[in-house]
């Protein structure tokens, strides 16, 4: 573990942090996670506002917790504030990073979506929407693939090999089939996954 950080953050630093996340927001095509390498460069390497452990932990916790993954940004803000020494600073960190990452993209998307909806019968809008459909499906399947692989890797066996982690893959495939074919409430399946995992069965 690296040594804990003790920061003194000036107004200019808070503004710098805010401005950087505003910029990240506009670049976050494909989700905020796609800019996380740039956040790493800015927060960990350039300014030393965040340790490597805190960076990793922010992403892992946000993945594990319910809710949108973008909340990893809030955790980074929280840790930066905690490194500056107080819970009040940590809450300011959450506010600054979340408002920064959300505002520009929200305004842009809202405006563009309204325009697209009003003009949905235009040939170009229809072509865009129908032409993108196969990509949308491919991206969903890729995400499922990545999640199953990374869940397998970080579990007991160190390799992502399908054979070594077959119970986990089996659980993913079975739950996928159940969800595809039935209307069962998700919470039942999540609870079942949690119980099997807690007992070390998958």
């Amino acid at each position: 573990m690296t040594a804990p950080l003790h920061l003194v953050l000036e107004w200019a630093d808070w503004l710098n942090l805010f401005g950087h996340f505003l910029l990240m927001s506009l670049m976050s095509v494909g989700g905020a996670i796609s800019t996380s390498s740039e956040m790493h460069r800015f927060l960990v390497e350039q300014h030393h506002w965040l340790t490597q452990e805190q960076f990793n932990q922010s992403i892992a916790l946000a993945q594990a917790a319910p809710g949108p993954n973008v909340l990893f940004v809030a955790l980074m803000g929280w840790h930066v504030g905690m490194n500056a020494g107080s819970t009040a600073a940590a809450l300011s960190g959450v506010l600054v990073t979340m408002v920064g990452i959300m505002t520009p993209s929200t305004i842009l998307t809202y405006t563009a979506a309204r325009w697209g909806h009003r003009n949905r019968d235009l040939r170009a809008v229809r072509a865009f929407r129908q032409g993108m459909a196969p990509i949308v499906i491919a991206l969903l399947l890729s995400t499922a693939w990545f999640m199953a692989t990374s869940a397998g890797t970080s579990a007991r066996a160190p390799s992502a090999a399908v054979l070594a982690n077959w119970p986990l893959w089996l659980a993913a495939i079975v739950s996928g089939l159940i969800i595809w074919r039935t209307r069962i409430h998700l919470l039942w399946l999540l609870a079942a996954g949690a119980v099997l995992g807690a007992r070390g069965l998958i």
Partner: protein
Amino acid sequence: MNAPPSSPPSATSDPANRPRSPADLFISFTLLALQGFGGVLAVVQRDIVDRKRWLTQEEFIEDWAVAQIMPGPNVVNLSLMIGGRHFGIAGALAALAGLLTVPLILVIGLAVLHARFADSAAVAGALHGMAAVCAGLIGAAGLRLASALKKSPMPLSWCLAIGAAGFILVAFLKCPLPWVLFGLGGLNCVLTWRRLAS
């Protein structure tokens, strides 16, 4: 560019239901967010499309493509679009607040508690188990949406080939997302555009 004033609203594709109020949006998106471990998108497909029927499969895919191509987290963008369509800015903000407020409090609480439970093998195991279920959930959402490809102006086999190419590019060749979106997606949009003309 403006739509011709005579263009008819596409009433045929209207879904069966709609949210009752911004408060309904807030509560629905809070509940959605709380079910989404490792991402909320697939829960939206299941709850908003399959169960509540606020959107049809086709509308979901179309909105999702827009949500994906715009900057910002895609599920956040999707909530803005769904909320905004029914109740304007109030609806968009209600859906957004629902998606973020309670999960934000929870995740900060988890960060505070993290040191205490991080060492527990049972907790770590439970998280892996839930991640496996989520992987299945997201895969199933993709498979369900594939049925909407039948309505594309392009042949189904072509759509499946494009989808397979996209999957290989992203999952195995680790191609950066913008290349796939603008390259492969852009190519297919142009082809669809030409096909729509004839």
